[in-house]
């Protein structure tokens, strides 16, 4: 078994705002081996994108990593200088974003944008660099790559643009590819193509992938292990099979039950989690999910649950009092549906 090359330990990221400091990601830890895929799921605002931006340190002026460490190939990225980060970004860790429409610069050709990166990190002679860019475009399945390289992004469809993004992200053979909702803006048939492509490239190059999505279907297709986030915290983590077969946290269960399955009977009523995700300025005390949880007890409302393995030495970790306390204790009355 290969060693972990990335270890994120108790990462905490905060943003300075007019209303004071807000903690966007409270505590995230995970490890990654070469060629492994980790999925991060959660609803909007749960901190999954901020986690990935923290790895790249693309937090802008107002964001800071307050606590924790990111050990990448033996180096702590939280202590790296800006110049060191520049040599890592796009080179050893690269990223593809959600919106292929807005993440390419509209006033430069595809080739221009690819060559910028190749020149910066690989320092190839001009002709070779161009040939390499064409090779990368062909690899991600772009037809007529030697012509497309001179086109502007607006000439390409959404799926093609996302392929260009992937070609750019992979051209320096990164160790880690962060894909932040890579297929959310695309149609299902194009989504299937992009996911297949990512799988193929992962298997060829042994690149580790961190895929962020709100779609459990995408996660089930891609990931080896999964982190479920809710309101800035990891609420459950496990390998993908365990998580889907035996989810322990009420939020994970609720999320799974609320997706309309293709194989289920349509007469069934969908399960829905009552209420909405709490806002960052107004986090509930105790367990952050207790206001929406049908099993919540008095303890959940007052004490913060820690993230603990369900059994000693297990990789399946849950942040829930119900898993850690006496399971026979009677829960308080399940609440009726709160207004969304």
């Amino acid at each position: 078994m290969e060693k972990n090359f990335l270890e994120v330990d108790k990462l905490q990221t905060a943003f300075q705002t007019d209303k004071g400091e807000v903690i966007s990601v409270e505590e995230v830890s995970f490890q990654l081996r070469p060629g492994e895929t980790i999925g991060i799921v959660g609803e909007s605002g749960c901190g999954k994108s901020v986690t990935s931006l923290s790895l790249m340190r693309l937090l802008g002026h107002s964001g800071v990593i307050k606590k924790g460490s990111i050990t990448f190939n033996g180096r702590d990225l939280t202590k790296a200088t800006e110049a060191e980060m520049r040599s890592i970004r796009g080179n050893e860790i690269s990223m593809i974003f959600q919106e292929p429409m807005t993440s390419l610069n509209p006033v430069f050709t595809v080739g221009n944008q690819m060559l910028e990166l190749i020149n910066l990190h690989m320092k190839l002679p001009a002709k070779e660099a161009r040939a390499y860019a064409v090779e990368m475009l062909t690899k991600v399945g772009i037809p007529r790559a030697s012509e497309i390289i001179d086109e502007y992004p607006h000439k390409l469809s959404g799926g093609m643009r996302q392929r260009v993004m992937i070609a750019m992200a992979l051209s320096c053979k990164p160790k880690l590819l962060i894909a932040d909702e890579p297929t959310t803006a695309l149609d299902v048939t194009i989504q299937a193509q992009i996911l297949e492509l990512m799988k193929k490239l992962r298997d060829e190059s042994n690149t580790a992938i961190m895929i962020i999505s709100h779609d459990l279907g995408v996660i089930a297709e891609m990931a080896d292990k999964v982190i479920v986030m809710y309101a800035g915290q990891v609420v459950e983590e496990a390998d993908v099979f365990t998580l889907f077969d035996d989810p322990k946290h009420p939020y994970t269960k609720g999320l799974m039950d609320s997706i309309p399955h293709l194989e289920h009977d349509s007469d069934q009523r969908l399960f829905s989690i009552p209420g909405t995700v709490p806002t960052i300025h107004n986090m509930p005390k105790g367990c952050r999910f207790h206001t929406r949880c049908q099993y919540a007890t008095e303890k959940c409302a007052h004490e913060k649950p820690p993230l603990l393995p369900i059994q000693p030495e297990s990789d399946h970790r849950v942040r829930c009092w119900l898993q850690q306390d006496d399971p026979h204790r009677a829960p308080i009355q399940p609440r009726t549906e709160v207004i969304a």
Partner: protein
Amino acid sequence: MSLIKSDERTPLLEVQNLKKYFPIKKGIISRTVGQVKAVDGLNLTIYEGETISLVGESGCGKSTTGRAIVQLDPQTEGKVIFKGKELSTLSSMELRKIRTDLQIIFQDPYSSLNPRKRIGDLLAEPLLAHKLTDKSEVSRKVDDILEIVGLSKFHKSRYPHEFSGGQRQRIGIARALILQPKLIVCDEPVSALDVSIQAQVLNLLKDLQKEFQLTYLFIAHGLGVVKYISDRIAVMYLGKIVELAKTEDIFKNPRHPYTQALLHAYPIPNPHLRSRERIVMEGDVPSPANPPKGCSFHARCPLAQDICRSQAPALQGDEHTVACHFPLG
């Protein structure tokens, strides 16, 4: 699903050979140099009390169809007949009257509510515009409708920005519902919402349908959502319906290769099924400004033959119609 056969049910809305072309203009004097055929010859009958869904990828003309049906963007050609009246022949006064029965819910709950108006005023607006209710009654009706969609009357004096996405979509639904319409066109009402909120809104739409005997034309791209809500499904590709059947038939026995490809492409939230056999369709949707000759799907179809490249197939069949020269199953 009602047990009455489809020919005995009364059609509420009929769409006949609907076409909607958008001109492509170029140059200083804006000459028309071409046309985007967003919807190109669409026939559809919607019966009372059912939910029929339009699915397809972006650019296939599903939203354009929805907007043409409520006459927000009237069609270029063809007829929309609602309750026996052809909508394009009506005067604007008559159309306004009939719109009380024909409402639409929009996709984006963030941009479809006027940010400067309070919720109470937003909801009262349709009632006042159509002069349906006494002014004294308006307030009570607004209270009622808020309750029905799961909000409370205390929300009346708030502005849209104070609500979450799911709540805003409930307001959008309330706005459509307050006129007690017969048919509601739901244009991707849950696409912008999170999974857990999506389930709340879908359940609400289903409950309202039962309570008020509503008919829905549901436009979506997510197959899971469509399966949950519809009685019948029409699959669209490049401005045309390529397959139309009962929900179970579409999912159990898809006959058009495109429908099958859509089903195969849908990511299943079960990691044990990830190595299942499936067809990943290649290529993109062709441009509707320059659709391919013959069957519009032939360039991406694994089964395409010579005839597919030259002749467009017609929709065939009674209950389960499909437009393909070589239908599956």
